[in-house]
C-alpha cells in the first residue's frame, strides 16, 4: 500500500513538472494602462525632433475594450476603426491598420505614452521614429473620436 502511494506521488510529481516546466509562455497582457485616449504631442526621427503641424498634433488614438481602437487623423480628417493588441513580454503594440509597422512601447504611465517604430525611407535606409503621446479626455460618437471640449 505504502509503495502504491509512493508511486502515485512520484507520478503526480512528474506530471506537475511536465506541466509547469514545459508550458508555453503565456502572453502576459497588461493592457489596462493603455486603454485610454492619447494625443500626439511630439515626434523624433533618428533622435532628431520632427516639427509637427497643428493638425498632426491633433492625432488621437483610443485603445478600447475587445482590442478595438479608434484613430483620428486631423490633417486629412479621417476616422479609423482598427484592432490592437499589446504583448508586455516583447513590449510590442500591434495596430492592424498600421501593420507591417510594429510599435515598441518605450514609456507608458498614467499620463504619457512613447512608442518607437522603424520605417524604410525611399532609398532603403531604416529610420527610427519615436512618437510621444499624452493622455487626454475624448468623446466617441458614431466611431468618431474627438477631444472633449
Amino acid at each position, binding site marked *: 500500500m505504502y509503495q502504491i502511494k509512493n508511486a502515485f506521488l512520484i507520478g503526480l510529481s512528474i506530471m506537475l513538472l511536465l506541466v509547469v516546466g514545459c508550458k508555453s509562455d503565456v502572453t502576459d497582457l497588461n493592457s489596462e494602462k493603455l486603454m485610454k485616449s492619447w494625443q500626439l504631442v511630439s515626434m523624433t526621427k533618428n533622435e532628431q525632433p520632427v516639427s509637427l503641424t497643428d493638425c498632426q498634433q491633433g492625432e488621437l488614438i483610443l485603445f478600447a475594450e475587445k482590442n478595438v481602437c479608434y484613430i483620428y487623423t486631423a490633417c486629412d480628417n479621417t476616422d479609423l476603426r482598427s484592432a490592437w493588441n499589446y504583448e508586455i513580454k516583447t513590449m510590442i503594440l500591434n495596430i492592424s491598420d498600421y501593420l507591417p509597422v510594429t510599435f515598441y512601447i518605450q514609456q507608458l504611465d498614467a499620463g504619457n505614452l512613447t512608442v518607437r517604430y522603424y520605417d524604410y525611407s*525611399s532609398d532603403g535606409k531604416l529610420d527610427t521614429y519615436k512618437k510621444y503621446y499624452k493622455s487626454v479626455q475624448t468623446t466617441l460618437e458614431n466611431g468618431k473620436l474627438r477631444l472633449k471640449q
Partner: protein
Amino acid sequence: MKKLKLLAFITILSVAFLSCGDEKDLSQDLAGLWKQDEVLVDGTPAQLNDCEKEVTLLLEANGVYRMFDTCSSMEHSGTWIFSDKEWLNMSMDKITGMNSSDGTYRYGQVLVRFTILNVDNSNLEIRIKTTLGERKKTIQFTQMIQDTIVTGEQALLLDTKNKEMHSYIYRFKKMQL
C-alpha cells in the same frame, strides 16, 4: 526505501530535462535587422552587385518582417515564424503577373521555408533548395531579372533551365538597430 526515493528523484530530474530539451526556440536570435552579405548558389559565391549588398531584412519579434530590395527600390513585407528546430518560414512576395498599363509587377504571397544553417548574435545563414524558375519569381531578398522570350527555341531552353534545382544559401550580418 532510500533507493526508491533516489530513483524517483533521478526520474523526475531526467523527465524534466528531457521533456523540455527539444524546444529550443531560435525566434529571439532571429529577430533583428540583418544585412545581406553573401549568396552561395550550389556552394559557389554569387557575384553580388552594390545594391544587392545593401539589402536589409528586419525580422520583428511579433512575427512581421520587412525587407528593402535596394535593386528595385521596393519594400516587401510579410510574416515569419520559426518552427521544427531549424526552419524559418516566411510569407514572401511572388510575381504573379504584370500590369500592362504601367509595366509594374503584380505580387501574391507564398510560403517559403528556409533551413537555418546558423544563427547567432552576428550571423544568419539560411538555405533553400528550389528551382531557378521559382527563385526568379519569388522575391528572395532581391528581385531577379525576369525572362523575356523572343523565339520558341529560347522558350524551350529557358523552360529547361528554370526547372533545374539549385541550392541557395543566404548569409546575413546583424546590424545595430
